[in-house]
């Protein structure tokens, strides 16, 4: 599904190289986690994959089902099936959550040559998905993320994911700012979306999110590279001993 090969990237305005050769493959149906210390390039990986301005890819490739992601605009990547759940979902006053969700869903359908959903069809779909995610219908009427609690913002991200039905979901520190109950709710939402034709890349500092979203593969990232890859046990090892041991081991 997602193939990242020798990806190098730097900030556009500075000469500082952040990604120094990330290589990673996430097959359909699997959940991969990326863990790593602050500044290792985890969030940058998610931004470069989703096409955020301000980064320059200097080497390497990233493809989604064979399509070159790096050549596409962010909205084209979304239509191709990529979804980034933000660490800090953005507040957009004055734009209703419902308007936003419908605009996004229909823009993607249009880009894929599918029929757009009518307001009625969409409302029905949103209500159904919101219910399974325990999202209050009132929240849908409010402007995008405005006045939402940390937990509500993250649940809104998962609701978007459920509506847009992406193939490849990248979750950027979805656990940050969440209490245990909120984290469980978000994890339940993600788990409900797991399917053989969908893959996940879960970026996190801590192992605890991975208690709720069981990964198939865990990657450790340091200094802009994947330095170690293993099974779920690798996350437990990090939790127990910190990153220092692993970093020392890989030099």
């Amino acid at each position, binding site marked *: 599904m997602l193939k990242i090969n020798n990806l190098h990237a730097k900030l556009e305005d500075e000469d500082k190289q952040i990604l120094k050769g990330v290589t990673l493959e996430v097959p359909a149906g699997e959940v991969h986690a990326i863990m790593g210390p602050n500044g290792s390039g985890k969030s940058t990986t998610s931004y470069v994959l989703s096409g955020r301005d301000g980064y320059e890819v200097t080497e390497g490739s990233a493809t989604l089902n064979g399509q070159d992601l790096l050549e596409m605009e962010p909205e084209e990547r979304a239509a191709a099936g990529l979804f980034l759940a933000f660490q800090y979902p*953005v507040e957009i006053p004055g734009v209703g959550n419902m308007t936003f969700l419908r605009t996004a869903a229909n823009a993607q359908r249009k880009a894929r040559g599918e029929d757009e959903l009518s307001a009625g069809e969409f409302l029905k779909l949103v209500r159904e998905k919101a219910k399974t995610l325990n999202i209050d219908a009132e929240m849908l009427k409010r402007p995008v993320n405005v006045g939402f609690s940390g937990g509500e913002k993250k649940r809104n991200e998962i609701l978007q994911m459920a509506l*847009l039905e992406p193939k490849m979901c990248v979750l950027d520190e979805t656990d940050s700012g969440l209490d245990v109950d909120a984290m469980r709710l978000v994890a339940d939402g993600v788990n409900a979306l797991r399917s053989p034709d969908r893959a996940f890349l879960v970026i996190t500092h801590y192992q605890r999110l991975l208690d709720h979203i069981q990964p198939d593969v865990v990657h450790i990232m340091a200094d802009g590279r994947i330095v170690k890859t293993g099974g779920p046990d690798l996350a437990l090892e990090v939790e127990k001993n910190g990153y220092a041991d692993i970093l020392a081991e890989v030099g």
Partner: protein
Amino acid sequence: MSEAAVKTRAAEADALTQRLDALTLPEAGFTAAARADALARLRAMGLPHPRDEYWRFTDPRPFNAPLPQPIPLEETSPDSPLFTDRDRLVLVFVDGRFDAAASSDLALDGAEIDILSQAETRADHWAGALYGKLEAAGQTPVPRPFAALNTAVAADGVLIRVTGKPAKPVHIIHRRASAEADVSWHHLIRLEPGAELTLLETGMVGARSNGVTEVDLAPGARLNRIAAKRAGHQKLGFSGIFARVDAEAAFKNFELSVNGTLMRHEAVVEFVGDDAVAHVAAAVLGDGRTGPFHHDDTVFVTHGAERCESRQVFKKVLKNGAVGVFQGKILVKPGAQKTDGYQISQALLLDDDSQFLGKPELEIYADDVQCSHGSTTGAIDETALFYLRSRGVPKSRAIVLMILSFLADALAEVEDESLREDIAERLDAWLTRHA
């Protein structure tokens, strides 16, 4: 005075004389004395000049020409007309003259509606005591020459006296019939105690226009005024609204402005009774690509009573060299305790060529008041733009959504939801065309 300064003054006096000579004064009835007084005041104050404190950001000289440059009539409008899908009393003005055939019957339960040009000669008309009065009062402390000019020469307008709560809004529509029309209108809106009215004003204004609306709200009255006049391109326009707000009355004014070479909107509001409310708001969109754009909102709110609430909410979206100006003042007179005054003026600059000039002013002579202002100039938030795009929203649409988000606070000043939606649609259509 230097020789050069003497010459400049002489040239200005000349310009005033030429302008006044070019005017045709209407046949006046009950407005005769007010018109003569306004003309005398205008002669005394002269036409404005960039030297004047409140004209530093907007060069008034294009307004001062004896006659406007003809502007070809618009062939078609890209937008469907506003507010048409509801029951309204429609008053149509063509080049500033009332068109009875195109208008509704003037009868409206709870209101008395007359047309200035028709009512002028009637004896004992209520409007006789009001015409030009609020405009004249609004000349202190800041002179407003174009408003005085309007009072002197306005050819027509509506006179609305509301005693009840009419079931439908009054909708004034402007149309053009000639390329060179120098259009002026003067409306008087008087709401008796406890009366309520929604007043809509839309349509295409002339090559040069000058509109003044005097609003007199008795205790407990409520006026919602929503203006969305179309300037089209190349036009010059001045408008002034002068409101006197008595105890427990509420005045809500919202203006939508798009396009126009040189537009100056003045709003002068005075609280004369306690516990009253006045909100003046505007959404302004300018794109220099389709012609020069300069839009100036100049607001003066005087708190002359206790516990009144005033809000100024002005939002401007500017691109391709468009210029926006906001001059907003809150004056709190001695004794106007517990005043709650607030103003916010914000500009969203869509490129590096556009410009916003803001001058917020507070002048406070009472010690127990709450007054604040904010003014910001910024670009579209790149993080939010990326957020929308990452969900599949194309960049051009994402920008439109971000601009609508920016304008939301101003639009929220329109209380009626369906009117608000109409305006939002118009904004959306303009923004999409100018994306």
